[in-house]
C-alpha cells in the first residue's frame, strides 16, 4: 500500500496549494520513491521506456524529423521505387530503409505510420478509459439493478474476442454510414470500435475497487455531510480507484495498437491514403515474394517492437504498483 500511495501522490491535484511548489514537491517525492528506484534497477524497463519515447517523438514530430514527406506527391518520384535499404546492393543513400512501390521513403512512412498507429491507439484508450471507468464507478457505487445490467453486458462482451467486437462495430459503421464519408470519419469509427471493445477491463477493475472504497468511512462521512452521490463518486471514490487504471491503460495501449493494425491489415481500418503500421504491412506483403521484403518487414518489426515495449512498460508498472504480486 505504501508504495502505491507514495507513487500516486504525484498525480494528486490539490487546488489549495501553489501549483509550482506542489509540482516540485511531487517530483522530489517521485524521484525519492520506490517507483523511480525500481525503474533505475530494471534495464529492460529503461530500454522499453526509451523505445516508447523514441516512437512517440518520431510520431509526434514526423513532419519535422522525417527525411521525406511520403505523402507530398511533389517529393515522391516513381523512378525511386523499389530501392532496397542502404546496406543492400543497388541502394540509394537518400533512402536509409529503402523505398516502396511508389518510391516513398520507408523510414518516413514508418514515422508517419507510427503517428497514425499511436494516434488511433491513444484515442481508443482514452475513449475506453472514460467509458469503462465511468460505467465501473456507477456500477459499483449505485449497485442494484444498474450494476446487474452493466455487469451482464460486460460478461457477454467479454465472451467475444475484442478484435471480433471491433470488427463488428467497424463493419456495421461502414455499412450504415454513407460511403463518401469514410474518407473523413474513419478515425472516429476506428476509435469507437477499438475503444468500445476494451471498456470491460476498466469497468470490472474500477467496480471492484469502488465496492471496497464506498464502504470506507470517508465515503460515509461525505454521505452524512450530504454530498451528492455524483460528487462523492467523482471527488472521493475516483481518485482512489485510478491506480490500477493506469496499468490497464498502458497494457491496453499495446492491445489497441495491435487491434488497429489487425483491422488495417484486414483492410477495414486505416485507409491507404494515410497508412498506419498495419496498413503498411498489408500493402508491403504483396511484394514479399517478389523479393522486396523491406517494404513489409520494417513496418512489421516497428509494430512488434513498439507493442512489446509498451507491453513491458505496462507489466513493470503493474508490478511496481502492486507489491503484493511481486
Amino acid at each position, binding site marked *: 500500500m505504501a508504495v502505491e*500511495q507514495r507513487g*500516486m*501522490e504525484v498525480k*494528486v491535484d*490539490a487546488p*489549495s*496549494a501553489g501549483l509550482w511548489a506542489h509540482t516540485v514537491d511531487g517530483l522530489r517525492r517521485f524521484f525519492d520513491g520506490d517507483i523511480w528506484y525500481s525503474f533505475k534497477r530494471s534495464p529492460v524497463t529503461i530500454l522499453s521506456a526509451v523505445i516508447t519515447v523514441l516512437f512517440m517523438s518520431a510520431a509526434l514530430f514526423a513532419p519535422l524529423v522525417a527525411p521525406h514527406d511520403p505523402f507530398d506527391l511533389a517529393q515522391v518520384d516513381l523512378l525511386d521505387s523499389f530501392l532496397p535499404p542502404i546496406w543492400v546492393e543497388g541502394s540509394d543513400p537518400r533512402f536509409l530503409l529503402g523505398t516502396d512501390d511508389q518510391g516513398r521513403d520507408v523510414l518516413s512512412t514508418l514515422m508517419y505510420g507510427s503517428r497514425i498507429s499511436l494516434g488511433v491507439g491513444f484515442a481508443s484508450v482514452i475513449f475506453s478509459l472514460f467509458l469503462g471507468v465511468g460505467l465501473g464507478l456507477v456500477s459499483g457505487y449505485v449497485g442494484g439493478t444498474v450494476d446487474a445490467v452493466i455487469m451482464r453486458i460486460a460478461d457477454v462482451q467479454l465472451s467475444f474476442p475484442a478484435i471480433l467486437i471491433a470488427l463488428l462495430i467497424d463493419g456495421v459503421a461502414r455499412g450504415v454510414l454513407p460511403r463518401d464519408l469514410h474518407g473523413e470519419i474513419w478515425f472516429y469509427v476506428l476509435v469507437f470500435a477499438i475503444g468500445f471493445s476494451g471498456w470491460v477491463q476498466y469497468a470490472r477493475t474500477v467496480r471492484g475497487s469502488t465496492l471496497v472504497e464506498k464502504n*470506507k*468511512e*470517508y465515503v*460515509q*462521512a*461525505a*454521505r*452524512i*455531510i*450530504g*454530498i451528492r452521490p455524483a460528487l462523492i463518486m467523482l471527488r*472521493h471514490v475516483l*481518485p*482512489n480507484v485510478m491506480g490500477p487504471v493506469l496499468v490497464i491503460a498502458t497494457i491496453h495501449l499495446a492491445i489497441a495498437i495491435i487491434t488497429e493494425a489487425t483491422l488495417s491489415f484486414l483492410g477495414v481500418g486505416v485507409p491507404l491514403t494515410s497508412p498506419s503500421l498495419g496498413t503498411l504491412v498489408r500493402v508491403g506483403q504483396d511484394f514479399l515474394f517478389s523479393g522486396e521484403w523491406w517494404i513489409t518487414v520494417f513496418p512489421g518489426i516497428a509494430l512488434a517492437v513498439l507493442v512489446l515495449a509498451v507491453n513491458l512498460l505496462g507489466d513493470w508498472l503493474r508490478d511496481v504498483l502492486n507489491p503484493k504480486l511481486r
Partner: protein
Amino acid sequence: MAEPAATTPATAVANGTDLVEVRGLAKYFDVSPPLLNRVLQGEPRLILKAVDGIDFVIPKGKTFSLVGESGCGKSTVARLVVGLFKPTRGHIRFDGVDMAGLTKREEIEPVRKRLQMIFQDPYASLNPRWRIGDIIAEPIRAHRLIEGKADILARVGELLTHVGLSPVDAEKFPHEFSGGQRQRISIARALASQPEFLVCDEPTSALDVSVQAQILNLMKQLQREFGLTYLFISHDLAVVYHISDYLGVMYLGRLVEWGTGRRVFGQPRHPYTRMLLDAIPDLEMTGRRRIPVAGEVPNPINPPTGCHFHPRCPFAEDRCRREAPKSLPLPEGGEVACHAVEEGRLEAG
C-alpha cells in the same frame, strides 16, 4: 421492547429537553443467498435482525453510551441515527422532528448540519488523496457556511487548534499523521458544521490505550465547551465509565438494560450487564475480582428463542426460553428486560 413509552421514565426526561428520541427502532438485513440458489437448492430467505426494536432518548448536552459485544448491532444503530440506513421499523426524532418525514433536500439539509459522526477506523475515515484542510472544509463548503477561500482557511485553522493540532497541518495529507492525530482530524471535520449532536462509533477502539484517554478527554472538553450531545458507542464498558450520563446495554439487537451511568455501573440489574461489568477492571474500587465473559455471542441470523441471552444466563428458566422479556421501568429510573428481575428472583446490586 416496551411500546407504551408514556409511562416509562424515558419520557420523564423527555420534556422538551431531549435532543434525540429513538422509538421501536429496527433494522433487518436481507442476507439471503441469491435468488437462483434459493430456487434451485431450496434455500430459505435469511433475515438478520441487526437491530430489533430499541427505545432510548438522549437529553440535550448529555452523553448516552451504548455498549455490547461486537456484532450486537451498535454500529447499525449509529448508522440509522445519522441516516446512513433507512429503518425497517421505528422512528428517530431529532429535536422533535421525525427524520423519516424529511424527504426533500431542503428539509434534510438543516438537520444534517446539526448532526455528525466520528468513526472507528482513523485510517479509513479520511480520504487518503485529500489534504487535511480540504477534508475539514468539506462540511463548510457543502453547507455554504462560510464563503471565500481565506475565511474558510481561517476557520479550518481554528478547528485544528481546537482539537490540539496546528493550522499548518491543513497542508498535509492523512498518511502524515498517527491514529490519534487522525481521530482529532475526524473530530475537527465533525465540528466544522457546528453540530449539536455527535454520534461516536467506537472512536477510541483502534487507538493505543494512552492515546484513548487523550481523545476521550478532548471529547469531554469539547462537550463542555460547545454543549454537545453524544451518542457514544463502545464494546468496552471501561472506556465509557467516565463519560456516560446514560448507559444502554445491547445484546443481539435488543436493548436489555439502560439507566444513568451511575446506576448501571453501581447497581447493574440485567444478568448480561453484570457479566460485562464483572469482566472489566474494578472501576468502583470495591475489591471484587475480574471474571472473564463466559460463552460466545450466538449467530444473529438464528438467535436463541425467548430471551436471546438464555444460553449464557446463569438465571435462565423455562419461561426465558419461550418468551422474550419486556422492558420494564425500574423504580430508580431506567429500564431492564429480564424475567428474573421482573419476578424478583434477582436481588438488586
